[in-house]
């Protein structure tokens, strides 16, 4: 058993009343990460029942998840039950469940709390899901920096295995299941599901061409389901309370609950479990409003790759469809709040530096285009912008958009287009005056890479 405490204090005590604690219900309890504590709150009863064949059958599990309308929480929002249904029926190869715990999207920090504070509920979610899709091996892929979370997950899996909840012939049911934790090396692109699969196979993390999708050809060429940590954790309450009851927890037409993260210029950054479909305004209120009484400037609603949400759009419900209508994306539902002191040119230049650094280098538009944008935007921020750059930003971003193998290219282009469109005057001012009104910054040294 690991005795270290989580690096970040549990947010639970500070939560106002309106939250619904479903997947976060054990957070904040003493030793919430241990098996006894999880068992105390009724944990693993569902798994014991299911694996012994006294609960839902695999197809019923899939149907329940489908009926609940659970959608992927990793960023793309693909309906989970539908994805499970894509597994080929007549393929004799083994099937795998792969959990995406890479959590690399800037501003996103929800999965780590699940693993730190309630790893067993997550494991039970993996168990039920593996049972549903008839997988006997489940890989949990965690990002390289998640050293603490890796240890915690491994300890929890060991506990579950020792309690006979994992392994061969679980509780005499004849069902085998084992869960392995695989640690990545800290590359954002290994969060993209096929990049993750390559990395899991021991190769360089570079996304694969699709089709075929992982459900047909995944890890080791076998049918594979890739799901986010949070997605699979939601499976536990869904099966527990039934699709209808779970769905009713949501708001504004969205089903169930959601872990929302919020960071940036707010008073109480953290993760809040709210009814799915709560508005941006509500989330901002939970986070105690904008820091230091400053005025809100813009919000990135769901991880750095999403286009901006402006202060006049605060009443947008944070669910996949409503937020799309507002011209942006839910992404990982972890918002970054920026107040009036933020230089948008500097913000996007910094962001592009990230994407340029993380581009896997496979396809031309992303490999070259992200660096071009990063260099150009940095130059503008440092007062060396040219009149032509103002048309170039859009054109370069649009030449990346939609032309790449994976969505990282889009993830870099979308915010660029959005920041430029919504704050064009700031870019123009930088070019015209050669200055940044938000203050001078150190000029980054020129990077040169030579050597294999």
């Amino acid at each position, binding site marked *: 058993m690991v005795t270290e405490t989580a690096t970040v204090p549990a947010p639970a005590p500070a939560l106002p009343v309106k939250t619904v604690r479903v997947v976060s219900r054990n957070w904040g309890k003493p030793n919430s990460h241990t098996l006894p504590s999880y068992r105390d709150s009724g944990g693993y009863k569902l798994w014991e029942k299911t694996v012994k064949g006294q609960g839902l059958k695999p197809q019923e599990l899939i149907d329940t998840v489908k009926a609940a309308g659970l959608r992927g929480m990793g960023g793309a929002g693909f309906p989970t039950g539908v994805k499970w249904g894509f597994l080929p029926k007549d393929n004799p190869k083994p099937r795998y469940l792969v959990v995406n715990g890479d959590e690399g999207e800037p501003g996103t920090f929800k999965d780590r709390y699940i693993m730190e504070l309630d790893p067993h509920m997550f494991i039970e979610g993996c168990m039920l899901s593996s049972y549903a899709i008839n997988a006997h091996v489940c890989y949990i892929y965690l990002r390289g920096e998640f050293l603490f979370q890796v240890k915690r997950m491994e300890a929890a899996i060991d506990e579950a295995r020792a309690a006979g909840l994992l392994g061969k012939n679980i509780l005499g049911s004849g069902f085998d299941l084992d869960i392995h934790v695989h640690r990545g090396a800290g590359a954002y692109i290994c969060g993209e599901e096929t990049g993750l699969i390559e990395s899991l196979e021991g190769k360089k993390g570079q996304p694969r061409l699709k089709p075929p999708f992982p459900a047909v050809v995944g890890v*080791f060429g076998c049918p594979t389901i890739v799901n986010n940590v949070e997605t699979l954790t939601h499976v536990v309450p869904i099966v527990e309370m039934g699709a209808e009851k779970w769905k009713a927890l949501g708001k504004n037409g969205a089903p169930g609950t959601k872990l929302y993260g919020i960071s940036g210029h707010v008073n109480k950054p953290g993760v809040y479990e709210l009814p799915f479909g709560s508005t941006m305004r509500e989330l901002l209120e939970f986070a105690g409003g904008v820091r230091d009484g400053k005025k809100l400037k813009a919000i990135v609603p769901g991880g750095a790759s999403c286009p901006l949400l402006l202060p006049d759009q605060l009443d947008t419900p944070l669910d996949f469809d409503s937020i799309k209508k507002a011209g942006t994306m839910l992404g990982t539902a972890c918002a970054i709040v920026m107040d009036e002191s933020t230089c948008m040119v500097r913000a996007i230049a910094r962001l592009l530096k990230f994407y340029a*650094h993380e581009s896997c280098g496979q396809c031309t538009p992303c490999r070259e285009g992200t660096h071009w944008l990063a260099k150009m935007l940095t*130059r503008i921020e440092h007062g060396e912008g040219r009149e032509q750059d103002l048309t170039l930003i859009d054109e370069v971003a649009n030449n990346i958009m939609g032309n790449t193998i994976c969505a990282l290219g889009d993830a870099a282009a979308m915010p660029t287009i959005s920041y430029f469109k919504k704050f064009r005057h700031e870019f123009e001012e930088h070019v015209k005056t050669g200055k940044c009104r938000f203050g001078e910054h150190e000029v980054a040294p020129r990077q040169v890479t030579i050597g294999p």
Partner: protein
Amino acid sequence: MPTLKIDGVEITVPPGTNLVEAAKVAGKDIPIFCYHSHLSIAANCRMCLVHGSQNGRPWPKAMPACQTLVADNMEIDTCSEKTQAVRKGVLEFILINHPLDCPVCDKSGECMLQDNFFEHSNRPSRFHEYKEQKLKTYDIGPQIIYDGERCINCTRCVRFMDEIALDNQLAQINRGDRSVIACAEGKQLDHPYAMNTVDLCPVGALLGKDFRFQKRAWFLQHTDSVCPGCARGCNVVIDSARLENEVYRIKPRDNAAVNGPWMCDDGRWTYHQARERRLTQATVRQDGEHKAVAVDVALRQAATLVRLHLGKPTLAVAVSPHLTSEDLYLAASLQKQLFRASTYAVTGHAPWKGDNFLKVSDRNPNRRGAAAIHDALGLKDVLDGNALLTAVESGKVKALVLIGTELPSADFDRLKAAFSKLDALVVLASEKDAAAQLADVAIPVAAFTEMEGLWVNAFGRVQRVRACVPPKGDAQPAWKALRGLARQLDVNVRQADHRDLVVDLAREVPLFNNLTHESVGAFGVARGAETSAPRKVGEGKLPEDFTLPA
């Protein structure tokens, strides 16, 4: 079979065809870099992006033509402004970090990047930042230089090593615009087929040291021919410089029945033997000294030496399986009518270790042709090169006529000892090799880059060798030299020119029945049922100890 429209042209092609190939059927050209018909699809360069529609609904974005397969009711546009705009964007991206050092790049003139840029963009760059600096002139292997700045990261080279050579010597390392191709630490790109990566490289990022800085591509003329390196007879293009009649390079030529688009590295270096160390003048030995003489004088001297032994047990005649079938046919006819030597042999290089890809163990390109001719003309008891050397060493043979000097042993001392037992050694040689140096009379003949004729590969395929440069110095095709020798021995050879020889060969030797040079053509004609197609992508094996986790 799916029917689709490409720029309005309706075509029907087999299912599974990708759009790049389908466009060719419609007479359209979609620009590519990473796509290669003999490698797996990587779709990473994005050069082939095209817009289109399915069932009348436009695709939401441009799709890579190399990865997209044909379907019914598909419409593709390969040249609308929308598609062209995507292409311009991709080319601009590829070039932002490119060093633009075409003036000193050997690929210049045959570079896909130059071609695609001038055809599809030709727009000045709008890039105003500093360029990324990467590995330049990096010694990646014994034969190859790598230039990371020119590399467009198409991974053709990596895929060739993984999928065809089945030896993962290369990988793309680093990320983003720092990406380069490299070998594992302490390893080199030294596979015996590594030079294929140089052919595959669409730009000047991988260059063969052999050709580097030798000749600008636009001075080269290309001749379709066959590699003399082994009995597979890989189809090749021989590149020679027009003005100076010199060969500079051999590259593989795609022939699905023989070598696919590949060849081994050893085959590529064979042109050196035709360029260097050449015998360009006839020599006769006088008082232990080699004296350069006119070919006629040498032929007369040869006739004098041989005449004493005609039809006697002391005469041996040996032909090389590097000669054309026409040469071999004339030699065999003369053996019957003129030499009547008691020892007749087919020599040739000693075998090497073949491999499981292209190389076959016999290093001689026309042994099958020689055997077919000797069978048809009823020559019996034809010895091989080793038996010939043993016969010479035994002292039984007193006069030896070597037509072509490829011998199973290149050991100078052994040959010297053997040939010292002879009274007369007459050789027709293209190289100043041991035999030519030890000969009493040496007559220069054409090398494989200088001869026209037919070879038969190990699988019974008749293929055409072509002259791409004229014979060097006083050299002439072997059959002409033989005819000259016959005349000196008072026998008039009936065939007035090469064409007559081909006609007779085709008439009298069943393997060549009804064949002409034209009907053999650039790709050869299979005689017999043997096939020898090289392996394709996916035909390699997984490591045997691989079991799936279950």
